[in-house]
C-alpha cells in the first residue's frame, strides 16, 4: 500500500504537515519533537498545523460514527492543503487512511476528499523509508532492543520492515526478536479501560515475552501500545525501558523512558 513510490526518486523538499496525535501531544511531546527532527533531516519542510486535535478513532471504535465523521471533516480541513501528512502512529494514520471513507460513507464528496488525503497520509517510519528514502546518519546507541509491531500499522498500513530498516542504521544497537511480535498487546484504545481484566491478561503475556527476549529496550511506533506495555513492565518491576522508535532514531533516547521520572 505504501510502496507506490518504490521506483521513483524522493520528492524534493515536500511540504509536510506533522500530526503529532493527541496522545503524543498530551503525554510524550519528545516523540513529536523527534518526528520533527527526523522529517527535517529527511529534507522536508515541516509544519505543525495549529488546528489539529484528535483523529476521531475513540469515537469511531465506540460506535459513535456521527462524531467520528465530524472529527474526520475537521482533520481533512486542517490537513488537506499539504503535500503529505505524517504522524508518529500507525493507529491514527490507519484511522485516517482506512476508516475515514467508512466514517464519511453517507457523504460521497467528503468521502472522496478523505480518500485523496489518505493517499498522502503516512505513518512516520514508512514515510521516511518508502517516500523519502531516508536513513539516519551518525546515530549511536549502545544496547539491545526488541520491537513490537502495533496492529493497525502492521495490518492496515503494512508497516513492518521500515522501522527495522531505520533502527538497523543506529550504530551499537542490536535487535533481539520478540516472540509474538505481531500479537496485540491488549491496549485496543478504550478496550483497555472497558475490559481492564482481559486487557491485563493480554499485556501480562506480552510483558513476559518482552522479558524473555532479553532486550534492554522495548521499541514501537505507537504511544498507546507503548504506554500499556511499559506500564505493565514497570508494575512487574522489569528493567526493560520503553521508547518510541522515533526518539531512538532522532538520537533523543537519552531522556527518561516511558514511565520514568522526568
Amino acid at each position, binding site marked *: 500500500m505504501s510502496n507506490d513510490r518504490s521506483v521513483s526518486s524522493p520528492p524534493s523538499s515536500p511540504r509536510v504537515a506533522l500530526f503529532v496525535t493527541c496522545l503524543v501531544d*498530551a*503525554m510524550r*511531546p519528545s516523540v513529536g519533537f523527534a518526528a520533527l527532527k527526523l522529517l527535517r533531516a529527511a529534507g522536508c519542510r515541516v509544519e505543525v498545523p495549529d488546528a489539529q486535535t484528535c483523529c476521531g478513532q475513540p469515537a*469511531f471504535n465506540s460506535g459513535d*460514527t456521527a462524531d467520528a465523521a465530524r472529527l474526520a471533516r475537521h482533520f481533512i480541513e486542517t490537513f488537506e492543503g499539504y503535500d503529505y501528512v505524517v504522524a508518529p502512529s500507525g493507529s491514527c494514520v490507519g484511522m485516517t487512511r482506512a476508516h475515514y471513507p467508512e466514517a464519511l460513507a453517507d457523504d460521497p464528496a467528503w468521502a472522496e476528499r478523505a480518500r485523496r488525503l489518505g493517499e498522502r497520509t503516512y505513518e512516520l517510519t514508512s514515510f521516511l523509508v518508502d517516500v523519502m528514502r531516508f536513513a539516519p546518519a551518525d546515530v549511536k546507541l549502545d544496547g539491545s532492543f526488541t520491537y513490537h509491531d502495533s496492529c493497525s500499522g502492521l495490518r492496515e498500513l503494512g508497516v513492518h520492515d521500515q522501522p527495522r530498516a531505520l533502527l538497523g542504521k543506529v550504530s551499537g544497537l542490536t535487535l533481539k526478536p520478540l516472540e509474538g511480535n505481531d500479537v496485540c498487546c491488549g491496549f485496543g484504545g478504550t478496550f*483497555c479501560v472497558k475490559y481492564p481484566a482481559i486487557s491485563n491478561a493480554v499485556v501480562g503475556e506480552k510483558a513476559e515475552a518482552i522479558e524473555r527476549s532479553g532486550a534492554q529496550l522495548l521499541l514501537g511506533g505507537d504511544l498507546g501500545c507503548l504506554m500499556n506495555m511499559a*506500564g505493565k513492565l*514497570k508494575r512487574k518491576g522489569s528493567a526493560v525501558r520503553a521508547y518510541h522508535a522515533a526518539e531512538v532514531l532522532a538520537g533523543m533516547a537519552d531522556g527518561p523512558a516511558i514511565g520514568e521520572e522526568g
Partner: protein
Amino acid sequence: MEQATLSFKARAERALADPTLKIAIDRTTGTAERKRALAMSQFPQFEAARDRARRIKDHVIANLEHYLLEFERNAIASGAKVYWAATAEEASQIVVRLCKEAGAKRVTRVKSMLGEEIGLPHALDEAGIDRVETDLAEHIVQLGGDRPSHIVWPSMHRTREQVSEMFKRRHRAPHQEETIEAMVDSARRELRDKFLSADVAISGANFLIADSGATCTVTNEGNAELTTTPPRVHIVTAGIEKLVPSMGHAIAMLRVLVRSATGADVTQYTTFHCGPKQAGDRDGPEEFHIVLVDNGRTRMLREGMREMLRCIRCGACMNHCVVFRQLGGHVYGGTYPGPMGAVLTPVFDGLEKSRDLPHACTMNGKCQEVCPVAIPLPTLLRGWRDRSWREGLEPGVVRFGLGVHTFFALRPRLYRLATAMAIRVMRLFSRGGVVRGMPGLGAWTAHREFPAPARRSFMEMYKDQEGGR
C-alpha cells in the same frame, strides 16, 4: 449453563481466574496456531486459494435463491426429503418430529455446530430420546454436562488430565494406562455398540452441493461414516449458507478449510451423502432427510452482514484471538465463540443481551488476516458497535465522556486549554514517573502503571520554540 446468568464481565473474570482453563486453552490454540503456520508455509498458493474460496462464497450468497432451489430439486430427485426451517425452534422441532415418526429410542449425532445453534441436544433430551454424541470431544462435553467451547475442538476447555479422570468415573471399561491412545480406546469401547444400535443418525453438513443434491461432512475421527451408515434414518441439518454450486467448488473450499482449522493438507475423513439407499446398494439409510435452516441468515443478508455468510466454521479466528485465548469459549455465552461468535451471537440472541461481545475486542485485525474467506470481522464488529450506539445501548458515562471529548476536539483553542489542564491534574498525582491514585484512572492503574505526562504539551512547547516561524 449456569454461566448464562452471570454478566459477560463476571464470566470473563471467572475464566481469567482459572489456571487449568488457561493451560487447556493454550494447548489447543497454541497447537492449532503452529500447525496452521506450518501448513501455510508449505502451501504458497494459499492466497490464491483463499481468493477463490471467497469468490465462490460471494457468488453463492449473491445467488442464494437460485442455488437453494437447485439443491432442493436435485436432493428430491436423489430420494431425499427436504424441509425448510425459518427459526432454530422450527428446525429442532422438525428433527424431533422425524425422530419420533421413525420410532427412535436412540439417536447418534455427528458433531454439528448448527445442531448446537438450533438447540438440538436439548430438544432431543426433552423428547426423551437417548442422544449419543459420537465425536470424541462432543462425547466429553456430553459426559461433563456442559457446552462446546470451541467450534472445532468442543471440549477444548478440559485438559486431558481432567478427561482421563472423567472417563474413569463414567466409562464402563475405562483405560488403565494414562495415554491418549488408551483413553481413545476407552471411549471406543463405550460408544461402539451404541453406534450400531441407533435408530436415527443426525449429522450436519460442511457443504450442500447444489448440482447433485449431495451433502458433504468432514471429520477427523471417521465418526460421520460410522454414525450415518447403520441406522435406518439419516437426518442432515444445515444452514442455508453452506451451499456450493458443485463438487469441484466443495473441494476448493476444503483446501482452505482444513489448513485453516487443523493445519492438515486434507481432512481425515470427507464423506458425501446423496439420497437414501438405492436398489442394489449394500448399505445406507432407508430414509434421508435434509433440514435447511435460515435462523437469521437472510436477515444478515438484508442488514449488512453479507460477508459473515462466507464463514466456513474453521475456528482460525478464535485460535488467533488474544481475547479468546484468555477466556475460552464459554464466556461468550452463545453457540459460537471468538470473533465470528461475537458477530453471530447478537444476530441470534439480540444485541441488548450480547452487547459486550462486539466491544470486548481490541480491533487488532488478526482474525481477518487468518480468515480463509477474508471476512472483515473487525468491520462487522464495529458495525454492531455503531448500531449499539444508535440504539442507545451504550452506557451513559461512555456517551458523556466521548461527547465531551468531541466537543473539545472540534474547538482547537479550547482543546489546548483542556489538554494543558489535564496534564497539570495528572502531574498532581504523579510520583516517580507514573500517575498514582487519580480518580477515573483505576481501570488502568489496577493492573499497570500509568506513565506520567511531561510537564507541558507538545503544542505548548512547540509554540514557544518556533513561535516566530
